[in-house]
């Protein structure tokens, strides 16, 4: 009991506020990703895109959300009710969980009751940060699998099977490409990997091939074109979420956009220097402007980098047609895995040679 009372309750409150703000920020970003997706699609196809709801159509996501909420909720009679509801919940949950280990900025500083407090802008700086991400990401396949299976519909099941095997296949090269990175950094901790890039070279310069493999796998993990076979609207009738309606469908679609945001953030943190402001000496700058302004600048930098990656995701989606299933598997198992292994061996040799 005394332990509980002696606990730093301020710490708990700080973390709660941080969690709530990061979750709501990623929800808002996911909302505006749907808007951006339609706008980017329109601009690439010489159209105008949504421009009716509000100035420049900025309220379009709100209108879409309202529409999804107001739709009739249909649960098929033959479906397994519990799993049918669990599917979208899991998809959403796993999408949100990954953001816990990503450093969004350095720290903010304020004085409370005459006491200096520093709040790190990373929810949990755990030792196994990257392993945690992998664990949560591979949970994401359950959302697809359970949803498709519980619908009790052969097309949904087919699509879910395709999705599951795709995600599992592409997790392997993703992991292998990161092993090469980990051999260089020597830590699984996100803040350490991030800190090495601060005012130094970005990891993408040491690991261009690793980054490329990771990028391709991120497309596959997020079920984005050219690897959106689980959805495959014109062959499988929207695939695993065919039987879903109303906000449960909304959750699936939303989870995809959150995944896109989070995987962009992971890529930025691991390979593109995270919140480091490029061409600026951060340690010098922080002495001049203080922690709070620095945190704001760093958060902004991170956001810009992430936004560029999200644009890349969309740009690729509206350029490349979907892969055929055998092409997808060929690319994964015969292309990316050997490439990742090669990258790993070369990195290992170089690391060994440099240490000697």
């Amino acid at each position: 009991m005394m332990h509980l009372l002696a606990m730093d309750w301020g710490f708990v409150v700080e973390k709660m506020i941080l969690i709530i703000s990061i979750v709501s920020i990623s929800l808002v970003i996911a909302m505006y990703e749907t808007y951006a997706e339609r706008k980017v699609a329109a601009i690439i196809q010489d159209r105008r895109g949504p421009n009716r709801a509000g100035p420049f159509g900025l309220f379009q996501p709100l209108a879409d959300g309202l529409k999804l909420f107001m739709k009739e909720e249909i649960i098929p009679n033959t479906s397994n009710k519990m799993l049918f509801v669990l599917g979208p919940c899991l998809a959403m949950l796993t999408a949100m969980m990954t953001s816990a280990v990503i450093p969004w900025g350095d720290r903010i500083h304020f004085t409370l009751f005459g006491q200096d407090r520093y709040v790190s802008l990373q929810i949990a700086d755990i030792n196994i940060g990257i392993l945690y991400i992998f664990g949560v990401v591979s949970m994401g396949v359950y959302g697809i699998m359970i949803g498709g299976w519980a619908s009790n519909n052969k097309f949904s099941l087919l699509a879910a099977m395709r999705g599951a095997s795709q995600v599992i296949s592409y997790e392997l090269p993703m992991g292998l490409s990161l092993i090469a990175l980990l051999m260089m950094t020597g830590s699984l901790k996100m803040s350490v990997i991030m800190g090495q890039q601060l005012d130094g070279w970005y990891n993408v310069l040491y690991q261009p091939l690793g980054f490329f493999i990771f990028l391709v796998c991120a497309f596959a993990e997020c079920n984005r074109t050219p690897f959106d076979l689980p959805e495959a609207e014109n062959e499988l009738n929207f695939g695993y979420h065919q039987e879903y309606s109303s906000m449960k469908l909304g959750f699936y679609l939303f989870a995809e956009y959150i995944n896109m945001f989070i995987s962009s953030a992971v890529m930025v943190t691991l390979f593109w220097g995270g919140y480091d402001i490029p061409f600026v000496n951060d340690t010098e700058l922080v002495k001049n402007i203080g922690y709070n302004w620095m945190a704001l600048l760093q958060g902004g930098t991170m956001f810009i980098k992430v936004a560029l990656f999200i644009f890349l995701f969309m740009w690729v989606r509206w350029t490349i047609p979907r892969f055929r299933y055998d092409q997808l598997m060929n690319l994964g198992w015969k292309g990316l895995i050997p490439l990742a292994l090669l990258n790993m061996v070369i990195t290992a040799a170089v690391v060994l040679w440099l240490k000697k």
Partner: protein
Amino acid sequence: MVERKPMTWVERLYMWNIMKGMWITFRHIFKKKATISYPEQKRPFSPVFRGLQILNRDEEGRENCTACGLCAVACPAEAITMEGAERKKGEEHLYREEKYAAKYEINMLRCIFCGLCEEACPKDAIYLSETFAPSNYQRKGFIYGKDDLLIPHPKTNPVEYKKALGNRANKPQHEQQ
């Protein structure tokens, strides 16, 4: 015949072709938009555009139609029905000649907007205007009666009259053919 050559090494890498495709879509970002913001902006009509019919009046606002039935005969879709009536004393300001159409209906769902009614009319009574894309909630709403078809009165409502007349009816008859 499409020749299916095995992919070359560069093609099997996918990357080069993907880059080329991305460059193409990137260039499209800066191109002129093909779409317009429709209700605010409208595309110009061709001078021979054929829209919904209007029943014309003369300069004093009298109806031109004499219910001769030539338009109904000419109509290939059989969309036009009418009933004639005799002009009474004191109705001279309403109808130009002794006979007029008491009922004049065009079924817009049947109409194919060919313009043969306009060509058949000896009295310049029917024109195809520039109004298009009518919308309604019910089928019976597409059967346009006289109150839908008649042009606004040129004396009491000259602005609407001009608008309804459009560019097409303003031209002399010989130019229209």
